[in-house]
C-alpha cells in the first residue's frame, strides 16, 4: 500500500431528522480530529452528493467506513452511488441498543449521547487501525 493509500474515509450520514444523525456527526469529528487525525479524512456528504469538491477522489483512493443513523442508510447509498469502497458499516440504532445509551435530542445529545459518541468513536478507531494494517 502506498503512502497515498494510508488513510480511511469516514462518512457520517449527519441526518437532521434523528438524534442519531447528530451522533454520527459527532463520532466522525471525534475520530477525524482527536482519535485518528493522521489516518482519516472526513467526507462531506452534501458536497459528495451534489458533486462539489474533491470527495469523490477520496472515495476512489481510500477505503471507507460508513456511519448511518437510521434505516434509510443514506450515507451507504450515497457512497455506493459514487463508487466508494465500503469496508466498514456502523448502524447506530443497533449500537444505541448495544450500549443502552440514548441521546437526549437532535440538537443537544446530552450526557448519554456524549458517552455513546465516545464508545462508537473507539469502535471506528479500531476499524481504522485494522483497515490500515
Amino acid at each position, binding site marked *: 500500500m502506498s503512502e497515498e493509500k494510508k488513510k480511511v474515509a469516514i462518512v457520517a450520514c449527519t441526518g*437532521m431528522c434523528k438524534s442519531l444523525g447528530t451522533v454520527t456527526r459527532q463520532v466522525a469529528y471525534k475520530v477525524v*480530529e482527536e482519535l485518528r487525525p493522521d489516518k482519516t479524512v472526513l467526507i*462531506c456528504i*452534501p458536497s459528495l452528493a*451534489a458533486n462539489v469538491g474533491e470527495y469523490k477522489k477520496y472515495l476512489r483512493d481510500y477505503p471507507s467506513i460508513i456511519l448511518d443513523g437510521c434505516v*434509510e442508510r443514506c*450515507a451507504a447509498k450515497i457512497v455506493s452511488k459514487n463508487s466508494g469502497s465500503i469496508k466498514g458499516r456502523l448502524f447506530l440504532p443497533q449500537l444505541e441498543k448495544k450500549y443502552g445509551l440514548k441521546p437526549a435530542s*437532535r440538537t443537544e445529545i446530552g450526557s448519554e449521547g456524549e458517552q455513546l459518541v465516545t464508545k462508537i468513536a473507539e469502535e471506528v478507531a479500531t476499524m481504522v487501525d485494522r483497515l490500515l494494517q
Partner: protein
Amino acid sequence: MKIKSRKIGLISCSGEDMPEGTISRVATRRVLEDRDDVVSICLPLFLAGGQEERDFAKENPCVTVDGCEKRCAAIGVKKYGGVDAKSSIVVSEIVKEGKFQKPSSRSKILPQDQRLVGFVMSTINQEIKEVQEGKD
C-alpha cells in the same frame, strides 16, 4: 392552495467540512423547534433518493441554509428535486460581511458563536416570513 396555508421546508446543508456547516445545522434545528409552520427536510435523505422529501420540495416552498459558497443544499434541491429553493441563505457570506467572528469549531457551537447562530436564525425566520407573504 395558497402558499400561506402550506408548510415551508427547511433544508440545511449539514456540511461537515467547515464550522459554518455546524452553524447552519444548529440554527436550522433551533428554528424548527420554535415553529410549527415549517418542516425539516433531511438533506442526506433527499440526496440519497428519498421520494417523499423530493415530492415535498416540488409541492411546497423551500428555504435552503448552506454553510459555504459551495451551496450544496441549494444545488442538491435543484439537481434532485428539479426545483429552485424559494430562498437560499449562505452562512459564510453572512460571516464575510464582518459583523461576526468566523466560527472555529466544526464539532460544537462555542460561546462566541452563539450570536452568529442567533443571527442566522433571525435570517431564516425573515426569509420564511417573506416566502409566506409571497415576496419570493
